[in-house]
């Protein structure tokens, strides 16, 4: 019988139930019959021995009256046919044993008769009395002492038969139960196997064999219907997922291609713009030198405006090219000492504008991070020069550069006490050409932070910013410690 962690199988339970039922019925019936039989066989014994005593009595009346012990003993000797009779005798009305019979030949004493009690049991021995009467007058009493061997042998025989019947019935019950439980336990067992197969193999195409009757058949059918439903849903889900994956892959491919084209386009545009710009710049310069004096103030101002615009455009093109490049160049893996990078950037900024009073607070513990040295230098340069730029209106400009090492990444921040920004534009800051301030307020192309984001993303990191209008801003970027690179 197969058993599981939760107890015996249904087959075992059914078998046990039926065997238990029939066994209990058999035992109860056997005990009841045995009790009845004991009672009945005792009654029969009493009745038979009473009859014996009566016959002895009526055959011994004359012997009693005529004092013929020999004749009485001869009559009593007939009890030899009753092997269970221990002793018997005839007692005269004055209580003397007149004649006796003893199975083993020993002396016989008269048992005390109790009036109104024709028989009694004394320690497994039946004692029985029968008056000997002649024409209504009592001339003596016959008594018989008998063992109950016949009764006990009958009980033993009965027990033996009952045991045999019990065994045979149990075997029969087992056989019948085995056959009877098959249409119940079989389908349930196979259903359980099917359920097990489904859950272990995740194979929803499994079906339980359609068998059984009534509720069982219903159970199997419902189970199969359920499986069919699950299978259908599973297939739909799988198809949807496959379709989705394919669509994502297609879109990604398209987008990548499109992006590439765009990059190539913007690169070539930027690149191709440089040559005419250089011409404009060069010839405006020549014009200023050659005819500058001939022009009036308005003319010279026009030329200055053209030269400034050309210069800004050149800067714009350079930045665009740079932005485009950081998206295309291959990143070199290395270690970047942020401390040194920051110091270089600060020195350059001071040289560019020695008149500005800016307090730089660079924490001495800036870490060495894994990454591409050239591009990370661009990141730090952009962020610090941004801070430098947007604090120019402050009398006392303060710029703080620091890091927050984490378990998985290093977070670098650049904080300033400049003009700050409104947090509702925080997610626009890192877009291309996104400017929160007018160009004549703060010079710049609006590409710097976009470049920063692109580089950080390519290093597998993130960028974000916190700020408040007129209260300064903090720009963060993170670099993963493992130095993973995004493509």
């Amino acid at each position, binding site marked *: 019988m197969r058993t599981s962690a939760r107890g015996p199988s249904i087959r075992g339970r059914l078998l046990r139930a039926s065997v238990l039922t029939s066994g209990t019925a058999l035992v109860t019936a056997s005990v009841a019959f045995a009790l009845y039989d004991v009672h009945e066989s005792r009654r029969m014994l009493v009745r038979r021995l009473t009859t014996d005593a009566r016959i002895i009595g009526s055959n011994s009346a004359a012997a009693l*009256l005529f004092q013929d012990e020999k004749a009485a003993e001869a009559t009593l000797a007939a009890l030899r046919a009753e092997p269970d009779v221990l002793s018997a005798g005839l007692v005269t*009305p004055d209580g003397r044993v007149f004649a006796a019979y003893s199975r083993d030949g020993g002396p016989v004493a008269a048992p005390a008769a109790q009036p109104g009690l024709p028989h009694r049991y004394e320690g497994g021995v039946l004692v029985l009395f029968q008056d000997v009467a002649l024409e209504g007058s009592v*001339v003596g009493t016959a008594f018989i002492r008998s063992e109950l061997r016949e009764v006990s042998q009958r009980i033993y025989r009965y027990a033996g038969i009952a045991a045999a019947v019990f065994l045979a019935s149990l075997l029969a019950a087992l056989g019948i139960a085995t056959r009877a439980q098959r249409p119940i336990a079989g389908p349930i067992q196979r259903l359980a196997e099917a359920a097990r197969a489904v859950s272990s193999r995740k194979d929803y195409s499994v079906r339980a064999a359609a068998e059984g009757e009534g509720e069982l058949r219903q159970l199997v059918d419902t189970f199969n219907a359920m499986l069919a439903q699950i299978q259908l849903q599973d297939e739909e889900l799988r198809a949807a997922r496959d379709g989705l994956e394919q669509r994502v892959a297609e879109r990604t491919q398209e987008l990548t291609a499109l992006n590439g084209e765009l990059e190539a386009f913007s690169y070539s545009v930027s690149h191709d713009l440089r040559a005419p710009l250089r011409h404009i710049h060069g010839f405006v310069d020549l014009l200023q030198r050659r005819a500058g004096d001939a022009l009036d103030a308005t003319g010279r101002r026009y030329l200055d405006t053209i030269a400034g615009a050309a210069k800004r455009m050149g800067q714009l093109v350079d930045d665009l090219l740079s932005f485009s490049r950081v998206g295309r160049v291959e990143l070199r893996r290395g270690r970047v000492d942020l401390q040194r990078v920051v110091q270089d950037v600060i020195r350059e900024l001071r040289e560019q504008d020695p008149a500005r009073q800016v307090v730089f607070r660079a924490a001495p513990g800036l870490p060495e991070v894994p990454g591409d040295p050239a591009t990370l230098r661009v990141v730090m340069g952009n962020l610090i020069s941004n801070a430098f730029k947007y604090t120019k209106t402050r009398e006392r400009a303060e710029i703080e550069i620091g890091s927050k090492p984490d378990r998985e990444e290093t977070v670098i921040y650049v904080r300033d006490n400049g003009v700050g920004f409104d947090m509702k534009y925080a997610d626009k800051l890192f877009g291309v050409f996104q400017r929160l301030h007018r160009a004549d307020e703060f010079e710049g192309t609006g590409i710097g932070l976009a470049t920063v984001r692109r580089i950080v993303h390519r290093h597998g990191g993130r960028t974000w910013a916190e700020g408040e209008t007129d209260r300064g801003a903090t720009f963060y970027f993170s670099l993963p410690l493992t130095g993973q690179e995004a493509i």
Partner: protein
Amino acid sequence: MSARSLPRRTLVLAALCLACSPAAGRADLPTEYEVKAAYLYNFARFVEWPPASLPAAGKTFVVAVLGVDPFGDALDATLAGKQIMQRDLTVRRVARVEEAAGAQIVFISSSESPRLTRVLSALAGPGILTVGDMDDFARQGGIIGFRMEQRKVRFDINPRQAVRARLKISSQLLRLAQLVEAP
């Protein structure tokens, strides 16, 4: 029937248990004739008379004692208050056999031995149980004859004579007696 040669209990013990014996309650031992009186009554209990020979209803069942009465008052004491076949018993003592006519039981005393043949032929009618108090009584044509055997009272029965007298003697009684036949 079994032989009666085996030793018997003493008459003393035998008499002690006689339910109907007047001697049963007495301190001294029952005499031979007290036992014989009881037996006489007991014979009547195991013998069946033909209806024609029985006394009419209301009349008494007569036990006659022929010859010299050896019982004294033992027989009267024994039979007092007793009944046979729902009839009271009376004892009639007679000297001549003719006087015994109408009795159901006739006890023939040993004094009648010399004229036993005549007495028996006179009593040969149906319905008369003859009991003789002498040896060989049954063999000489009587029905029941007393006999002493090792100081115990025993008796012989002549079944052929009983049949002739149309008396039915119980097999129980026959079993206890020595059965004899007339030569």
